[in-house]
C-alpha cells in the first residue's frame, strides 16, 4: 500500500468534505475517518500517481458520494442544493450581514449592561460615554435589521442552535412558572421606563451636566414602553428593547451594589465610632486614628490637678473599648519609624526624625544620614486653673484641651 503520494485521495476527500460542510465538523471527521482507509487502498490498487479522475470513475463524483452518505446516514440534505457558485457567494455575504446584526446585538447588550452597571455603581455620568463606542455597532445592526428583516438572522446556524437550546430549556421547565413570567412582561417594560427616569434624575442631581442626558433617558423610557408589547408582532424591535433592558438590568444591579455599599459604610461608621466621625479614618495599617473634631490627634497628654504630667494612662471609650492606635518606634538602622504594634497606652513617645552629619550635628547643612530618636518626656507643661474648679466628672476634657499653653516650644511631632 502506498501512501507516499496521497494527493488524489486528498483532493477527493476535500471535495467530499466541502460538500458536507454544513454538517458538524466532528461528524464530518468521523465520516471521513471511515472513508479514508478505503480510498487509500483504492489508490494503491490504481497504481502510481493515480489521477483524481480515476477515483471519480470508480466512486462517482465527490458530490454524489457525499449525497449518498447523507441519504444513507440520515443526515439532512444539502441546503441550497441547486445553488451555483455565485448564489453561494451571495448567500455568504448575506450571512455576513446577518451575523453582524446578531452579534452586534449581543455586543450591544453586553456594552449597555456594563456601562449601565458602571454608571449606577459610581452614580456618575462618565461611564455612559462608553456607550458611544457601542452605539455605532448597534446602529449598523439596526440598519441591517430594518432593511433586511430578521429572517436571515433567524436562519444563522448559531441562532438556530441558540433557539433550539432555549426551546429545550423551556420544555424542561414547568410551563406554569414560565407563564407566570410571561404575564409579568408588560410590567417589565413599565419598570424599565421607571428605572430609566429615576436613574436619569439621580444623575442630574449628582451632576447638572447630566441634564443633557435626561431627554435621552426619557426617550429610551418611552421607546421601551412602546416597543415592548409590539415585540411579538415585529421581531426587529428586539434590537431596541433588548439593549435597553440590558441597560436597565445593569444599572439596577449597579444601583443595588451602590446602595449596599452606602449602607455598609453608614453602619460601619455608626458602629465603630461614637458618631460624627467621617467613616474610613484609618491609618496605613488599618488602625483607627484618634481625632478631635475633624483634626487628627496624634498623641494624648494627661495632667493631674496639680499640673503633674501622667506618663502612663490607658484610654477607653464610653463602652469600655480601648482606644488603640498604631504604636510607632524608631528603626535604628534606617532612621525610619516603624510600626511595633497597637495599644491604648498614652502618651506615646515622641519620634523625632531628621538628618545628621558625621559629627553628630543634627539637621545641619551637611546632614546626610537620617536619624530617628524617641523621646519619652512631655514636651510642654500645663497650668491647671485653680480658680475655676469644675465638676469632677466634666473636668477632664476642657482642662486638657482649653488649657494647653505650650510653655515649652514645639508641639508634639511625629
Amino acid at each position, binding site marked *: 500500500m502506498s501512501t507516499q503520494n496521497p494527493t488524489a485521495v486528498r483532493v477527493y476527500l476535500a471535495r467530499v468534505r466541502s460538500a458536507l460542510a454544513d454538517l458538524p465538523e466532528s461528524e464530518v471527521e468521523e*465520516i471521513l475517518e471511515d472513508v479514508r482507509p478505503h480510498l487509500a487502498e483504492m489508490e494503491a490498487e490504481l497504481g502510481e500517481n493515480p489521477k483524481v479522475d480515476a477515483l471519480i470513475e470508480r466512486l462517482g463524483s465527490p458530490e454524489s458520494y457525499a449525497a449518498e452518505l447523507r441519504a444513507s*446516514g440520515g443526515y439532512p440534505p444539502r441546503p441550497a442544493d441547486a445553488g451555483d457558485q455565485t448564489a453561494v457567494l451571495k448567500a455568504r455575504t448575506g450571512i455576513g450581514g446577518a451575523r453582524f446584526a446578531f452579534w452586534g446585538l449581543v455586543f450591544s447588550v453586553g456594552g449597555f449592561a456594563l456601562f449601565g452597571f458602571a454608571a449606577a455603581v459610581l452614580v456618575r455620568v462618565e461611564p455612559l460615554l462608553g456607550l458611544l463606542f457601542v452605539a455605532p455597532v448597534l446602529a449598523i445592526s439596526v440598519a441591517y435589521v430594518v432593511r433586511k428583516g430578521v429572517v436571515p438572522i433567524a436562519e444563522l446556524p448559531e441562532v438556530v442552535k441558540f433557539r433550539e437550546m432555549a426551546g429545550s430549556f423551556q420544555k424542561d421547565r414547568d410551563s406554569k412558572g414560565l407563564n407566570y413570567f410571561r404575564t409579568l412582561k408588560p410590567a417589565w417594560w413599565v419598570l424599565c421606563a421607571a428605572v430609566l427616569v429615576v436613574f436619569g434624575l439621580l444623575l442630574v442631581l449628582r451632576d447638572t451636566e447630566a441634564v443633557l442626558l435626561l431627554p435621552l433617558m426619557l426617550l429610551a423610557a418611552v421607546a421601551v414602553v412602546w416597543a415592548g408589547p409590539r415585540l411579538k408582532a415585529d421581531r426587529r424591535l428586539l434590537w431596541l428593547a433588548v439593549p435597553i433592558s440590558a441597560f436597565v438590568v445593569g444599572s439596577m444591579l449597579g444601583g443595588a451594589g451602590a446602595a449596599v455599599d452606602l449602607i455598609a459604610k453608614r453602619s460601619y461608621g455608626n458602629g465603630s465610632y461614637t458618631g460624627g466621625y467621617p467613616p474610613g479614618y484609618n491609618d496605613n495599617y488599618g488602625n483607627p486614628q484618634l481625632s478631635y473634631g475633624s483634626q487628627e490627634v496624634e498623641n494624648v497628654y494627661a495632667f493631674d490637678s496639680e499640673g503633674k504630667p501622667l506618663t502612663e494612662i490607658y484610654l477607653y471609650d464610653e463602652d469600655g473599648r480601648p482606644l488603640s492606635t498604631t504604636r510607632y518606634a524608631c528603626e535604628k538602622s534606617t532612621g525610619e519609624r516603624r510600626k511595633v504594634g497597637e495599644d491604648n497606652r498614652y502618651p506615646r513617645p515622641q519620634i523625632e526624625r531628621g538628618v545628621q552629619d558625621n559629627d553628630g550635628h543634627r539637621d545641619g547643612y551637611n546632614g546626610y544620614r537620617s536619624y530617628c530618636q524617641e523621646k519619652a518626656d512631655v514636651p510642654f507643661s500645663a497650668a491647671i486653673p485653680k480658680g475655676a474648679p469644675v465638676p469632677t466628672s466634666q473636668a477632664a476634657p476642657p482642662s486638657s484641651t482649653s488649657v494647653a499653653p505650650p510653655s515649652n516650644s514645639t508641639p508634639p511631632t511625629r
Partner: protein
Amino acid sequence: MEISQLLKGVLDLAVLAVLRGEDGYGYDVLRRLRVAGLQEVGDASVYGTLRRLYKAGLLTSYVVPSEEGPHRKYYSLNEPGRRRLEESGQTWRTFATTMNSLLGEAA
C-alpha cells in the same frame, strides 16, 4: 427488480449481520457485504449506514492505528445492536417466508 431498491430496506440488517462474528472497519464491512454477494451495495451507503447505526447506539467504535496507512476505525456490535439484529432478522425471515410462499403460489 432493482436490487439496489431492495437493499435500501435491508442494508441496516446486512451491516449488523456482517459485524456479528467479527469487528470491522468501514472498508472491511463493505468487502464482507460484497463477498457475501451484495455486489450492488454503494460504498458511500455503507459508510453512511455505519454512522447512522453508530449514532443510534447499536455499534461502538475504536481506533486502531495503522503503520502503513491512515488509522482504521473499527465498529463492533454492542448489546443493543445484537438485540436489534435478532429482532430485524426475525422480521426479515417472516417477511421472506411470506414473500416466498406468495411467489410459490404464483409460480
